[in-house]
């Protein structure tokens, strides 16, 4: 009896030790993840002078200043980059939603000749890496005289075969009877799509929207190819520009302020829609 109790006691002790190790390891990991964020916020509040005078950087700010944020908006056209990215993200995402919803609806609900063949073609396009088509797209947009225009930025990013596929799968789960019921009541196809299918598939559409917004906000390669005029830079290109010639190479605090401003929208979006985003990314994870 006593023996058994003792055994149990050590078992519990071992469990506790294990759980402490678990939490310690996770905390270290969290620290590694968060440290760069901490550092950028911290540095952004240091004055230029105090930053450069700290040979051993300090972990706290003694004299916080918002001067860096002012410079971020005045010395470089950060607000401009911001508006550009904002517009680019909104328009691209909205256009994409229209295109993929129509296509997914056609695949999921309409019966037409050649449907299976086109769908097979769509699926095979899913394997094609973007890097392969970017070359011709660059030439196409250049030939169309659309460099340094919003259209040039937006057009090649409007379709996503993967999202069409994701949405089609979702649309197909809506029972056929709902469509028949709507038909009996004289609902047109378009109205059925707008009033029934889209609302029912709302979670998937939100997921796709969020993923696309993240993708647009962070896109770098295509905008870099297609814009060389500062007035059309997106934030990623802006950051690169700032780094290479913005404040003069050494004004690190001002750079960090710009970085904070650029990172903030998505982080806020993430903290608000945390669960939706994480569920969406893990569901949409098949994207290759």
């Amino acid at each position, binding site marked *: 009896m006593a023996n058994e109790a003792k055994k149990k006691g050590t078992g519990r002790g071992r469990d506790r030790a294990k759980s402490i190790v678990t939490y310690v390891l996770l905390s270290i990991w969290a620290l590694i993840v968060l440290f760069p964020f901490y550092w950028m916020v911290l540095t952004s509040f240091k004055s230029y002078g105090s930053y450069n005078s700290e040979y051993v950087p300090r972990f706290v700010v003694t004299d916080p200043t918002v001067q860096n944020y002012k410079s971020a908006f005045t010395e470089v056209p950060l607000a401009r980059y911001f508006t550009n990215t904002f517009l680019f993200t909104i328009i691209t995402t909205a256009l994409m939603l229209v295109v993929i919803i129509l296509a997914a609806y056609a695949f999921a609900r309409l019966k037409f000749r050649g449907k299976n063949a086109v769908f097979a073609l769509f699926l095979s396009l899913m394997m094609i890496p973007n890097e392969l088509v970017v070359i011709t797209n660059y030439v196409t947009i250049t030939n169309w005289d659309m460099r340094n225009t919003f259209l040039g930025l937006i057009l090649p990013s409007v379709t996503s075969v993967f999202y069409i596929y994701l949405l089609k799968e979702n649309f197909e789960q809506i029972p056929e*009877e709902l469509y*028949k019921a709507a038909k*009996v009541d004289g609902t047109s196809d378009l109205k059925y799509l707008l009033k029934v299918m889209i609302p029912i598939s709302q979670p998937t559409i939100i997921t796709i929207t969020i993923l696309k917004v993240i993708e647009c906000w962070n896109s770098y390669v295509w905008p870099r190819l297609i814009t060389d005029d500062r007035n059309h830079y997106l934030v990623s290109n802006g950051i690169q520009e700032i780094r290479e010639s913005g404040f003069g190479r050494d004004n690190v605090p001002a750079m960090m302020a710009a970085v904070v401003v650029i990172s903030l929208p998505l982080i806020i979006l993430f903290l608000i829609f945390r669960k939706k985003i994480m569920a969406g990314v893990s569901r949409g994870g098949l994207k290759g």
Partner: protein
Amino acid sequence: MKVVLEHLTKRFPNRNKKIHTEVVAVSDFNVEIPDGLLVGLLGPSGCGKSTALNLICGLETPTEGKIFFDSDDVTDLPPEKRGVGMVFQNYALYPHLTVRKNIMFPLQNFKGEDKLTKEQMNERVMQAAKLVQIEELMDRKPSEMSGGQQQRVAIARALVKMPRLLLLDEPLSNLDARLRLQTREEIRRIQTETHITTVFVTHDQEEAMSISDFIIVMKDGVLHQMGKPQDVYDRPANLFVAKFLGTPPINVFAGEVKKGDVYIGADCIYRGTKLEDREVWVGIRPEGFILKKDGALTCDLKAVEVMGRDTSIVCENEALTGQPTVRAIIPAETPIETKGGNVRFDIKPAKLYLFDKQTEEVLEGIQ
């Protein structure tokens, strides 16, 4: 409103594309559904009854034949122009809309001079809701309701457009036994109150018999018989209809007519038909047996099941076909003297049917 189907036929291409034969779902249907009745369209699964319903509703177009609502030919009209309401087997409620919005949905499709104002719509919705008694559930979503409640919402949604014809596809199949009983009475009540001609599809004969004014029995796309439920039950046109209606089902024996008398094995169970000598199927309803010491038909007693109101005698007879045991239902007060061994029955002529061995059509000759 009267519904008339004339030579209605629907053929589908075979699903297996390599086979070029067609599947005939509905074959040369000629039916006149009387005005203002509750009509049960009855048949085993896969017999084409849902296709028939879809044809009436307009979701499918017939390969041949015509459909009339009263005197209007509606064969080529799309569903929304036919003025029909339809309730689907799984209810097909829009999951993202509340009950109120679900019921209102059909009204919002009205165009031109039919267009309703917000107040009119609300009024119509409340009327429909009251009729099916769901006024307290108006702001719930379908997922927050029981199957029975969803069913009522579906009916309300079908009724709100004031259809000339209400169609229900297997309305009770998704409900549990208790709710099924309750809901079928509910359907009866609603139909009685609205007087809308109503057609419902079912594979459950008891369901159809219990509430219909009129039933249509079909199998493999072919119409077998129609009429008032009791008439069809009492005077089945053929062996299929006789077997399909009634629980427990009719007992079918291989029998013979000799010199006008009907024999099952060596037992003569009925004398004096006007039929010539021939082999026949003999059908006896379970309630057609009278337990009698010197009865005409001898069977091996297997079990006696007491069911309260009446007693079911389970026994065997070599001539029986289609099922392992003969089932006879007799009033509970009848004393059962035989314990094991043989039981003997007399047969009530009204519950006795003879069918042609080949065509399985009923043979007249028993009074």
